[in-house]
């Protein structure tokens, strides 16, 4: 199965509070896998679990054939996985340039400038804001910076946690556009957690529906979008299983 | 070294230390162990109590002296008027007052009672004032504020002319009413030591009795609730800032009583005695070693550490040859490492905190089983 990621029988949570129950799914290489589900179903927890930010009680997470369950986050980052959290995903007190430099932490000095050049060319608005503090950016710009930060290391796999939350619809579309470009032009494997299920599934290749910390559906994004009970499950009118 | 070390446990001195420290560490346990207030300025209340104990029997005593005693002092001082209690004639004035107290046991007892009560009131007020600015803020701020208040008070009282400044004061003996009784039993030499011990022990026992009942009352439960989760306590209608202030007032009043008793026993005031190492950090170590939140544990911790301290003081010279350094520093090394080691190895202390219900457990078990 090569470069993709596969989650196997994961039980995870925070301390004693278990959120995920025996979750298994696979993430195909160079595709967008969308994780959807109602409030509190464990979507964000799933991403954090992949990145080693939760307590894993059981199960494995295979990346490039290697079990990364239980590894320290800063080590996972070095394997070529990047994570864009939903909130607090940029350093507000640092300038845009410092944010990008920060993202290149531990990389060879000689290529840092090129990489920063590379990512800012993807988001030209950022190059105009290089000396500004990140907390002066607008919501959309901030989200772009967050993605740019994650891109500096040229990750193979990117995890996005609700990147369009609290953004104006037009900006949200721009962000989803950018994510599509990452797949198409940069051949990056993507896991996207979205509250905005419709739009996310429209750009996605694969869909995973989490309900109550369990996988309720795994399959093509289209199939999930056309699933007759999706709306009802989303509104919490039907519990998983 | 074996046999004489047992001798220490027969001296009233050790037990006096245990009793006085028990008052302080138990009051700290009320604040920090039970309510979770990081009082790093415990010595503040002790200083205030000592100030009351040093000033009241002297300043008030001068006024109630009979005319002939006053005249005698004026003559001896060679001045036209009665010199101040804190003047250079302090020790002479104190002797006169002590003699007067010795011949009037009722006055002596009244002065003793008044001193203790005043110390408690002053302690409560100072506890309120010192914690008010930070009671609503994070515990770090409260800890720093209390420490700062205590240190500032120490410096001010060390320099205050009314307290004899850096020279300190000789304090008249307000325990003469008890000394006259004890001297008949243990002899004149030991009398004051023994009566100090009795007073300290009675007060400590009373406080222990009160605090033991407190943790077995709904109030104890409330205080633990404030410690465990402030947000939850507020949501359940508890004014946590006010509760913390009241607890600090109570804790400070008790520690202040300890300070006044200490002065009554030592009969000498010098501010530097009431430093943070002696009266705050040792008390913390006693509480942590014994078990935070457990009064009996704290009592045991107090006994152990007071004994160790006393042993080090007594056998300084005996252990000197075996140590590569001066044994006077052993105190600090023991205290410092103890605080850290206990936190690492047994954070709950010797006796962990126990659940204490106001109602008998048997009754609760029955109620739980009933359907």
């Amino acid at each position, binding site marked *: 199965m090569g470069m993709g990621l596969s989650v196997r029988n994961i039980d995870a949570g925070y301390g004693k509070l278990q959120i995920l129950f025996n979750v298994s799914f696979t993430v195909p290489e160079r595709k967008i896998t969308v994780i959807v589900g109602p409030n509190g179903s464990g979507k964000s927890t799933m991403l954090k679990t992949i990145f080693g930010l939760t307590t894993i009680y059981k199960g494995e997470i295979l990346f490039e054939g290697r079990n990364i369950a239980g590894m320290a986050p800063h080590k996972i980052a070095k394997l070529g996985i990047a994570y864009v959290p939903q909130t607090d995903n940029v350093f507000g007190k640092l300038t845009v340039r410092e944010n990008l430099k920060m993202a290149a932490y531990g990389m060879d000095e000689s290529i840092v400038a090129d990489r920063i050049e590379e990512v800012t060319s993807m988001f030209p608005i950022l190059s105009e804001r290089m000396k500004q503090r990140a907390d002066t950016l607008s919501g959309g710009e901030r989200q772009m910076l967050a993605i740019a930060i994650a891109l500096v290391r040229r990750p193979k796999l990117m995890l996005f946690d*609700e990147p369009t939350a609290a953004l104006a619809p037009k900006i949200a579309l721009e962000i989803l556009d950018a994510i599509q470009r990452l797949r198409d032009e940069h051949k990056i494997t993507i896991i996207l957690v979205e509250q905005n299920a419709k739009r996310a599934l429209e750009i996605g290749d694969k869909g995973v529906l989490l309900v109550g910390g369990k996988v309720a559906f795994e399959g093509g994004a289209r199939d999930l979008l056309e699933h007759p009970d999706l709306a009802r499950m989303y509104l919490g009118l039907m519990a998983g299983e | 070294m074996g046999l004489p070390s047992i001798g220490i446990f027969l001296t009233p001195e050790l037990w006096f230390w245990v009793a006085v420290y028990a008052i302080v560490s138990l009051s700290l346990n009320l604040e920090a162990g039970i309510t979770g207030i990081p009082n790093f300025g415990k010595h503040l209340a002790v200083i205030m109590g000592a100030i009351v104990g040093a000033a009241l029997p002297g300043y008030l005593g001068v006024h109630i002296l009979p005319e002939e005693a006053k005249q005698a002092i004026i003559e001896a001082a060679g001045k036209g008027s009665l010199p101040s209690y804190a003047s250079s004639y302090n020790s002479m004035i104190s002797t006169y007052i002590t003699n007067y107290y010795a011949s009037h046991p009722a006055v002596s007892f009244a002065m003793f009672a008044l001193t203790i009560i005043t110390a408690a009131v002053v302690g409560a007020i100072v506890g309120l004032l010192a914690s008010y600015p930070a009671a609503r803020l994070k515990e770090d701020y409260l800890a720093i504020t209390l420490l700062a208040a205590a240190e500032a008070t120490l410096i001010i009282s060390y320099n205050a002319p009314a307290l004899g400044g850096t020279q300190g004061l000789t304090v008249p003996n307000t325990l003469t009413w008890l000394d006259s009784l004890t001297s008949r039993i243990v002899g004149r030499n030991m009398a004051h030591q023994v009566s100090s011990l009795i007073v300290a022990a009675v007060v400590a026992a009373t406080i222990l009795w009160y605090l033991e009942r407190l943790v077995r009352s709904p109030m104890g439960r409330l205080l633990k609730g404030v410690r465990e989760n402030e947000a939850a306590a507020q949501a*359940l209608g508890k004014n946590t800032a006010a509760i913390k202030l009241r607890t600090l007032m109570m804790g400070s009043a008790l520690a202040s009583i300890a300070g006044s008793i200490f002065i009554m026993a030592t009969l000498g005031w010098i501010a530097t005695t009431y430093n943070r190492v002696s009266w705050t950090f040792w008390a913390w170590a006693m509480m942590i070693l014994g078990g935070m939140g457990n009064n009996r544990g704290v009592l045991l911790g107090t006994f152990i550490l007071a004994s160790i301290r006393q042993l080090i003081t007594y056998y300084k010279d005996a252990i000197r040859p075996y140590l590569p350094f001066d044994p006077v520093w052993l105190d600090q090394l023991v205290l410092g490492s103890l605080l850290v080691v206990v936190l690492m190895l047994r954070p709950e202390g010797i006796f962990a905190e126990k659940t204490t219900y106001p*109602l008998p457990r048997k009754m609760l078990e029955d109620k*739980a089983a009933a359907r």
Partner: protein
Amino acid sequence: MNAAKRWLVWKPSWTRLKCCALALGGGRWGRGVGGEPADIILATESLTKSFGGLVAVDGVSLEVRRGSLTLLIGPNGSGKTTLLNVVSGFYKPDYGRVLYEGRDVTGWPPYKLYGIGMVRTFQVPQPFYKLTVLENVLLASRNHPGEYFRAPLAKSSWLRREEELVDRAFEILRLVGLAHLWDHPAGLLSGGQMKLLEIARALMSGAKLMLMDEPIAGVNPTLAHEILRFITRLKEEKGITFFIIEHRLDIAMKYVDYVYAMARGRLIAKGKPEEVVSNPLVIDSYLGG
């Protein structure tokens, strides 16, 4: 006699009275069903709260009828919990008012709100960790005569009350199914049990209005039904009002009287449960459009 009083006495016309009632009752005059004034226990008026640049609650005005079970739904980040935090006094609003029984309680601290009968639970349970389950519940009791420093000296003044409260606490613990764990430290409970404990405490408080943040999230369906049935019983028998944030509508639906839906800090729908969940705006807010 001050100016306002004189003004009242001087011209006691119907309009004046209505104005006064508006001022006192927060504009709830004459909106009732069948000609009677509606009994609104909680109302918010243009409540607004922002953090930095983000407006978390944006001009929310809603009403909770006395004796109802009113639900607040909305997708993640729609501002539900922030609204609850503002109403329950944990945050101060930037703008707007909170009215409780017609009284302006905007910005009151939580313990004062508790005093007038408003109590809340937390989404993430907030137990007193080292205290036992029974102690946790007992701490919620109102005006306990033993919660003073004089208590140890006057045991007789509170002992009987304590016993009554213990009985009541056990009754509630049995109800939520925690009675067998009464002597357990609350910090050792499982997540679901902590949730139950949170509810037990709220019940113990004897509040008139309970604000609950996701009371049945993380609780198994059978138990969730039991809790909701119990809440309904309390509502009917004791007349307690419940204002609940919840997303598990499958279970909650049939117990609910009225639903508000929020998205992006604003109210987007209100009405009977069936109306609200079939409202395309609400479905869109969940699924995205």
